[in-house]
């Protein structure tokens, strides 16, 4: 099989992943899209490994590392998603807007994001 076919499939998968990250608003789906991108890379690496007849199989070894690190990344990502969900009851990315450029720079009280009132932290609210 010519090397172009798997390479093109990998490029398509990667593009689908990029589209997913940019278009999706659900954090979990964005996470899945990132995983898709990583898997496209894996496909590419294995393809090149076979194509180049790499004696030391550098591509396949890198694939293993990518798989492991992707798993670690998902573990941490889901933990962060969970923490956000517990506080907000939502994992919609569009609603994560507390960190933003304040619209009016000279107004100290009016431009305070709502979150500062909610999370002044510990103690009775």
């Amino acid at each position, binding site marked *: 099989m010519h090397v172009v076919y798997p390479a093109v499939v*990998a490029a398509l998968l990667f593009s689908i992943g990029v589209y997913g990250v940019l278009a999706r608003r659900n954090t979990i789906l964005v996470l899945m899209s990132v995983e898709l991108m990583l898997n496209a890379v894996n496909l590419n690496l294995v393809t090149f490994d076979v194509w*180049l007849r790499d004696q030391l199989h550098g591509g396949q*070894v890198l694939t293993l*590392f990518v798989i492991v690190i992707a798993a670690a990344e998902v573990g941490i990502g889901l933990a962060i998603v969970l923490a956000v969900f517990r506080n907000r009851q939502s994992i919609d990315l569009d609603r994560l807007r507390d960190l933003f450029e304040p619209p009016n*720079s000279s107004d100290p009280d009016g431009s305070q994001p709502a979150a*500062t009132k909610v999370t002044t932290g510990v103690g*009775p609210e």
Partner: protein
Amino acid sequence: MNTITAPAIEYLQLAPLLIVFGAGILGVLVEAFAPRYLRRAMHIPLTLLSLAGAFALVIVQTIKGVPTKPSAMGAVAVDGPTLFIWGTILVLAFISLLLLNDEDHFVPAASAVPGSAEEERALIEGNVHTEVYPLALFAIGGMLLFPASNDLLIMFVALEVMSLPLYLLCGLARRRRLLSQESAMKYFLLGAFSSAFFLYGTALLYGYAGSVDLAKISTALSANVGQDALLFTGAALLGVGLLFKIGAAPFQAWKPDVYQGAPTPVTALMASGTLVAAFGALLRVFWVAIGELDWDWSPIMWGVAILTMVVGAILAITQTDIKRMLAYSSIAHAGFLLVGVVAIGDAKQNATALAAILFYLAVYGIASIGAFAIVTMVRDAGGEAWHLSRWAGLGKRSPKLAGLFAFFLLAFAGIPLTSGFFGKYAVFQAAVAGGAVQLVVVGVVASAVAAFFYVRVIVLMFFNDPAPDGPTVVLPSWGTASVVGFAALATVVLGVFPQPVLDLAQSAAGSLFVR
């Protein structure tokens, strides 16, 4: 059947890395088996001693002589620039950890909802997440490995080992919890996105050169084998991943959000250590692996440098949050440093530019930790006084603190007699010698714009009336006080006598990156 031989590993050269990672693993064991009340008392010496030990080993290595070839079968390059960067990161990490040590920066129970009964209980029991120490150690280990990695596999692993703990640390702020978690989420998603680009670039370069080794990619370039499409796409995607980590425009969007939301000591660690590490890695990829291609990448890098300086300097003016403003200032500084990256030429020119970048990184890192340390000390009822208007008149109420902050800001602006001046001067001089005069002109204009917003804060602090219910300045712990003291001292000394460190940077850069 081809045979695989066991690799030769130069353990002594890698010892600083091994110590930091080993201490991180020991830290996890402490978390697992030590009783709660002992944990902090065990973590602090373990963490600080391991960093000090690693620093001592770096010095020993430097005195013994810089290795002339990569260690661990070409996977990790412990060369002059690496040793300088290691020393810098270890110093920066040490003082960031003194800052991190103040227990009230972090959340008592990360999984509890703010204001819930669970959190009340954690507070009353005096719980703290002492996991921050091993997490920070792992991040620091990744920072050490990142600029030293001589092949793209190690570089990717180091990138993730550096980033993953930082994602978590960002979400652990005690106050303004939602902001903190939001910053962790944004940092994580954008970071994972960018590392996927880095990896795709790696895969394509592997397809081009048949190896992920930086030196072999460079050899493949001169042998002109493989397909140019793979090479150029791969290099561009790799560049995206690296430029994201240093926060260069147009990949800077995460920086203000993350710096604002993260606990301030973690921000200090990121603003100094991550920047140094990422610049080391960027230089290694662009100068060693695709250095021969500089005619192709330097126009793009020119554009990125100009955009980064302009975006950083101009958007900083509109900020009202002190940490956000410092984040944009960090973006602008990344732009100034990129001016040095573009100044590639013959070996002598490269050594000059590299020495300038190394010096700049060291002085900027120290000054920014000092500035963030002061941010932790100015408090409102609900935590740090983040809004700039709250800082009005601080100079009248606590002149010493405001004076120190003003001094760090002047160092950022690059006023003579501060370390920032020599850093900027060295980088711009190297860029002029490298023929990037137009870029330096843009850089100087951007510095002037940046100086405007630094001075604006100083004017706000010293010439405005304090608000009646203004923020209080907390009495610093010994850690915070020594961080501020050290940073101020280093900024003064390096502003008056920069020569020893400049010489050190020059001798480190003289041997350039090994291949």
